[in-house]
Each structure stands twice: as C-alpha cells, then as structure tokens.
C-alpha cells in the first residue's frame, strides 16, 4: 500500500464524513439556496459519495473488508433515508426501509462463497482464536452487545411524553349507499350528473382530458367547462373550500395550518385520483362526522357539506377539483 493510496483513502473518507452534515444542513432547508439548488446539491453529494466509494474500492485497490463495508453501507442508507430524503419520512417508514436494508446488506455479504468467507472469517477468528487480539475483541463484543440491548431496553422503558402514534385510514371503505338530501345515492353505481360532453351525453372518464388546461372562465365554453366554472364558484365562493384546501388545491389554504391532520392535498396523486367520484361525493357530503368505524380516530375537520350545499353543487365542485388538478377519478369499468 503506497503512501499516496493511504492519503487518498483518508481524503475520501474525510469527504464522506464531511458530506453527511452538509447534506443534513441542505436537507434541513437552511442556507442561501432555493429548493431546486438544494436538490441539485443533494443529488451531487450522493453521486460524489458513490464515486468516492468506487474510487477507493476498485480504482485504488483499497477494498474495505466486508465486515466494515456492511455497517458503513447501513449508515449510508440511514443517512439517505433520514437526512437526504426530504421532507422527513415518518419513523414507521424509516424502520421498514432500514429493515429491508439490514436484511439485504446481510444478503450482500453472504452472496457468494468468497464474500461470505470474507465477512464471516473475522467473526470466526474473534470467536475461536486464542491470541490476545481475538480475546480482547471477544470480551469487548460480549460486553458491547449486552450493553446495547440494555441501553435499548432502558430507552424503551423510559417514560416518554411524545404524541401518540396516530393511525388514520385516510381512505376508509365507504358505505354502500348514503342518503343525501333525502335521496339515496348508491356509491357503487352513482354517476356525476354534470359529467356531460358536448353532445349532452355522459362523458366517459378520461374523455374530459380534452378540456384540461382550457379556460373555463371565458364567455362561450362547452357545457363541461360551464359545470367546471360553477364548481369553481362553489370552491372559491359558496363553500369556500379554498380556505383549507388551498388556491391550488394543494391543501395549503390559509387555514390549513390550524388543522391536524392538515387538509387533503388534491394535487397529490394519492388522493382524489385514487378514488371514485362517488367516494369523493361521500366525503364532501358527509364530512368528518360520517367517517366509518375503521377510520378511527375520525380526525377530520371536514364539515358535512350537505348541510350547506345542494347535491348539484357538490357534484359540480367535484368536477372542478378533477378538472383543476388534471386527475381522473378512479373507475372500475
């Protein structure tokens, strides 16, 4: 091992170690850069880290032993999911991801016979050999592992005052039918009465694409856009949905920060685009109070809009929401 190589090795290692707090800082949202630059920096750092690893390992012929690679990889994964991925993911998801990573890192170390030997040999030495180094590390290991378990147990038993974990089924199963304004709406079969094409017939889901991006507020617009327009009036006027769901339907209305959980973000592909129109109708008409049992803890500030809007207004505002976000309701046809 030449001196140059050792120097380079430590240089790269230092770079890696330095990268972590930089990434943390960038991810934390501070600094003089805008969001786009942040992302670029983050991606650049990740690429740099991988490149460094490749340089150290393959190019410079400084393979890290598997036993060191494994925890290093684990730490890199952890930094990736914990710090680089922004906004922060919940702990449950982090645990799930790290579980997958842990298993797969172990598999990586045992993929082939040589790599398994490389990985397990030091452990075997530590456990079996009788010379001083092995003995020392053996004692250390048998002190550290129970110590870690004890620390973990202590940590778990420690009384905590954090908020309880909240499980919300965001989209619980709807009832088969609901009664809105004394009319029975069967959610399986009901159709939006304002989904009308130019010919006055029912507009199939997907066919409304041709109206996307158009201006519904000019004078002479097709029937569908007229309904969109009226739905917009409900959204911004009659009902004032935008106070919570936001001008851009992104759930960031001026009141949104007062609510917990925060209002639904329609612009997210995980909300209305995953749901049937009738499901949305159910949620708008009945609001939080009518959430089913499985939607415990029923945390929703959504009012039952049937008390303030007519059936037609609800259907229209739904048309508007899909039109504005450019999503299509789910259908099973």
């Amino acid at each position, binding site marked *: 091992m030449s001196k140059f190589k050792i120097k380079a090795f430590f240089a790269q290692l230092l770079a890696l170690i330095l990268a972590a707090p930089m990434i943390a800082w960038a991810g934390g949202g501070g600094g003089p850069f805008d969001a786009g630059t942040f992302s670029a920096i983050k991606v650049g750092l990740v690429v740099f880290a991988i490149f460094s690893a490749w340089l150290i390992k393959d190019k410079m012929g400084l393979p890290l032993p598997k036993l060191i690679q494994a925890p290093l990889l684990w730490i890199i994964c952890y930094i990736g999911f914990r710090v680089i991925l922004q906004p922060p993911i919940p702990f449950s998801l982090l645990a799930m991801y790290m579980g*997958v990573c842990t298993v797969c890192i172990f598999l990586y170390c045992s993929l082939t016979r040589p790599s398994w030997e490389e990985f397990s040999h030091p452990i075997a030495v530590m456990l079996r050999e009788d010379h001083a180094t092995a003995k020392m590390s053996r004692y250390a290991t048998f002190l550290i592992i129970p110590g870690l378990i004890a620390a973990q147990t202590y940590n778990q038993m420690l009384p905590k005052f954090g908020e309880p974990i909240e499980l919300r089924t965001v989209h619980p199963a709807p009832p088969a039918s609901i009664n809105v304004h004394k009319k029975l709406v069967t959610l399986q079969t009901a159709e939006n009465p304002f989904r009308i094409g130019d010919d006055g017939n029912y507009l199939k889901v997907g066919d409304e694409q041709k109206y996307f991006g158009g201006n519904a507020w000019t004078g002479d617009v097709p029937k569908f856009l007229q309904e969109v327009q009226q739905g917009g009036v409900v959204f911004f006027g009659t009902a004032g949905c935008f106070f919570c769901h936001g001008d851009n339907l992104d759930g960031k209305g001026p009141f949104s920060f007062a609510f917990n959980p*925060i209002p639904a973000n329609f612009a997210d592909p995980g909300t209305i685009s995953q749901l049937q129109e009738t499901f949305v109708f159910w949620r708008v008409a009945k609001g939080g109070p009518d959430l089913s049992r499985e939607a415990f803890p029923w945390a929703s500030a959504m009012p039952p809009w049937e008390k303030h809007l007519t059936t037609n207004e609800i259907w229209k505002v739904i048309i508007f929401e899909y039109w504005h976000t450019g999503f*299509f309701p789910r259908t099973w046809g």
Partner: protein
Amino acid sequence: MLNLSGEKKKKVGAWLLLSMIGMLVLLPFAPAVVMAAEEAAVEEAKEPEKAKDVFYKEEGEFGIVSGPPAGELVYPDDYGSYGDFQSRTIIWISNQQHLYFGSFVLAVPMFVWVMELIGILQYEKNPKVGKKFDDLAHEMMKISLTAYSVTAILGGILIFSFLALYPGFFRYLSGIFKPVMHIYALLFILESGVLYVYYYGWDSMNDGNGDWKWSHLSLGTILNAVGIVLMVMANTWVSFMMSPAGVDAEGRFLGDIWKVMHNPLMVPVVVHRILGNAAFGGGVVAAYASFKFLSAKTLEEKAHYDWMSYIAMFMGILALIPLPFAGYWLMREIYAYRQQMGITLMGGLLAWVFIMQATMIATLFITVNYYLFQAMGRMPGSERYYKYFKVLLAILVVATIAWLTPHTLVMTPAELKAMGGAQHPVVGNYGVMSAKNTAINTMITTTVVSFIIYQRSNFKLTVPWAWKGNIFLAMLILGAEVNILFLGVYGYFIPANVRIGLSVPQVASTLSVLFIGVAVNTKMLKGAESIGEIRWGKMSVRGAYALFMLAVAFTWTMAVMGYLRSSVRLHWHVNEILRDNSPWAFTNPLGYAGNINSLNVLLFWTMLLFVFWLSALAGAGKKKVEAEEAAAAAVGKAVPAGSH
C-alpha cells in the same frame, strides 16, 4: 404382484384398468341424478314460490324457492363455545391445517405427474436420467401419501369443530350444498382408490416407457383431475360465503345448485388457489429435499437431494410467477362484485394485511434470487458473474422499497406536519398502483435475469452468433425494463381505468423476458463448452436455509391471504345473507392474525418435520427397499381409518 406377459396382455390390462377407473369417476354423479329427479318430483307436486336471485339478476331473474331462509342466528343457541375462547380461532386453526395438508396432497401429484412424464420422455434418450426423474417422482409421492391420511384426519376434525362450534351456520351451508357435499365425500373415496393404485402400482407397472408406464401416468392424470374437482367443490363453499349467488335475499336456495357453485368469485378464487397450491407444494418438497440434503451423510445422497430441491424450487417458482397476475384478476373481480369489499381489502380495514402480504412476496422473490446466487456456488465458472449479483440485489432492494411503501403511513401528528400531508411528496408516489406494478414486474424480471445467468454459469458459449445473442438479450431485458418503468411513470398521468390497462403491456414485457429470454439463452447454450459439471451437493448451507425460508414464506403467505379472504366478509358468515351473531363477529387485529398464522405454520411444519425426520431415521441403517416397504405398510394401515 401383477404378472402379465406379452405385449397384448399388457395392453388389454392397461385399458381394462383405465375403463374401470373411468366408470369410478362417473359413480359420484349417480346420487346427483337421483336427487335431481327427486327435486323435479317435488317441484311438480306443489305450487312453486318464486324469488329473486341475489346475484344472477338478468338471466332467470326468478328461481323456485327450494330451501329455508338463512334466518337470524342466535347466540348462544346456534353457537358452541369453550368458555370465552374464540370459537373462531379453533375453526381457523383446524381449517388452516386441513387446508395445508389438502393443498399439499393436491399439489404433489401435479409435480409427480410432471416428473413422471419427464422420466418417461427421457427414458428413450438416457435411461439413467429417466430413472432419476422417476425415482424423484416416486419419492415425492411417498411424502404425499403420509400427508394424505393426515389430510383426512384433519378434515374430520374440521367437520367436528364446525358441528360443535358453529352448528347453525353449518346447518344452513350443508342445507344448500348437500348434493355437492355427498359427491365430495364419494369423490374422496375415488381419490383414495386411485391414489393407492397409483402409489402401490408404481414399481409393478414400471416398464420404462411402455404401455404399463403410460397407463400409470394416466392414473396420475385421473388422480390430478379428481383432486382438482375436489378442490373446486370445497372452494365453491368458501366463495359462496364471500359472494353468494343462487339464493334469494333471505338466503333461500333457488333450486339451481350450479348457480350457487358458480358464484361471482368462484372462478378467480379457484385459479388463484390452484396456482397457489402448486407454488406451495413446490416449496414444501424443496424444504423436504433441503432437509434431506442437510442431514445426508454421503456426497451421493447430498447430490441427489440438492438436485431434488432445485427441481422442486423451480416448479414452485413456475407457479409463483403467474400468481400475482391471478391475484390481480381476483382483486378486480372483488371490486366488480362489491367496491366496498375491495376498499376494505386494499385501502380500508385490511389494508395493513396487504402490507404483510407485500412483505411476504418481496421475501419470496429476494429468497429465490438469493437461492439462485447460492446455487451458482456449485457451478464451476460462475465466478465470472459474481460481480453482477450485487447489482441485481441492489435492483431488488429498490424495487422492494417501492413495493413495500404503504399508501397510508403510520405517524405521529408531528411527523404528519413535518411531512406536509398524509402523502409524502417523494415516497408517497410509491404508495399507488402504478409503482406497485412496476416494482413487482421489476422483481420478476430480475429473477428471470438471475435464472438466465444461472443457466449459463458453467458454460462457455460456442455458437458463432453468441455476441449477437448477448446483445439481443441485453436489449430485450433493458427494453423490457425501460418499458416497465416508462409505463409505471406514465400511469400517474392517466385515468385509473386506462391505468389498469397499462398493467397488460407491463406484464407482457416481463413475460417476454421470461419466455423469449430463456428460450434464446437455451438456444445459445446449445453445444456450449462446459467449464465443469455441476457439482451437485456442493451448494452452500445458506442455500438450503434459503429454501426453508422460501417454504415458510409460501406457507405464511397462504395463511395471511386466507385470513384476508375470510376477514373481508367482516361480520357475515355468508356475505349479506347470514350474519355472524356470535361474540366473535369482529375482525381480529393484524397482530392476533399474525400470531395465529405463525402458530399454524409452526404446527404444520412441526408435523412435516417430524415426518421427514422419521423417514431419515428409517433410511439409516436399513436397506432402502425395506424401509420403503415398512413405510408403505404403516401408511396403508393408517389411511383407511382416517379417510372417513
């Protein structure tokens, strides 16, 4: 035993046997005919009352009421219990055990049949290889035979549990299915008969690839046919409970048993089950072989079981690959039947069970790949490919992470706020169907690539167009993956009904890699120069443990999916017809289900391991033939007692 000489005699005997069995097959339908006649007579006698079918709305809107209404069950009159213990859990466990053994004895004859066929076909070319496959088939059959008697015993326990704990429900179900249940019982006798002839006639009917052998294979065909009919029948009961048809809204039978059996979810559930059983059977046999592999003392034995485990695993995977698509079809049918049911499964109450199922599927695919990597340890020349393993593994990890990301996240309110919504702007995208389809297709494609590498790992290509072939293969795999990814991303921008259509080209990409890729690869290997023979028996111990993992994952997946299928009825015995009025009508939380599932799997494997261990004991010290005879005799005594 049979001592016929001369070609003619053999032929006549073979045909005689076949026709006898053919008549046996018809036997169970006799009571059905009688019953139909009786029913017809009853119909004429009185003015029939007509009622509307709950499912078949258009065709034959009205049926003649021919059964009592389901009524309302009353606790405790219509339920039995052992104190406060959940009666349902007892039913659950006995049902699950019966199902495990049932699926196993259904799946093994399928393998045996394929193995035997391969053996016969190979006999001409290479009698030694033919014999190898034939012995393998015979050995598998032996395991199945023991399991068969256990199945029957467990079936008896199940029925007793039903009678003791759910008499009201069982009365209703048996009232509707009585003709089917009788045919079922009779078919079971037929199945036993065929099974014994098939197993005990193995050696005496073995004339390489002659008529006797073919007749024996035909017996296997009949055995499988009867087995599948049995499974379909039992399956109709279950799917009737999920999606009843052929009865009116009060649950009164409307006279047409076929409509009851052919309920909306019957066909997809049957298809899903058959594939699932086959995969499961493969897993169990692979585990058996691994066990024998680990406990084998001689290299010869080790080599045999190494090979056997590989074959069984291979068969299991063949059934596993179409399974997600069959499951997808089933899900679609469920949504078509009741949207509410679909959402309860996928997004509602049971959504977390699907996370568990996703975990199991990811485990299966990662394990299969890992096994293939380990298996390459016995292939000289595979070192060339070691460097690709970690890339494949990395792809699997990424796909797994996308595959496992749930749509609904568990989080504290503070985490919710920090994230800025119930959906994460980055990983939230993995929570939806497009991402899931992409991930699973990627995982399957990766597995196929691993297999292609496995196929060629101990060969040096000699065909002149090798480089062209390699480029073609690379383009095929890359193209398919790009297509899968592109369609997955594209799926976010189109309506759901179109998006569902996208899964077809995605699957087509995967399947084309599977079929075209493997075919081209096989073609390229023609006349390839071997770097060294496969060193059977030299697989790492980790590979064997991976196969155990595979088997457990199969078993556990079956358990969890069974729980799911059963739970989706919520508080109904028969969906929307017969309400569960017992105190256990609630749906158990996932943790409880997980505990029971683990218990079930453990129970099943304990029984199986015990059987394996016994056979290992018997194999030691004695001559092989003697051992087999002893085992066969023991089995022969046990079975008739248990099958009734």
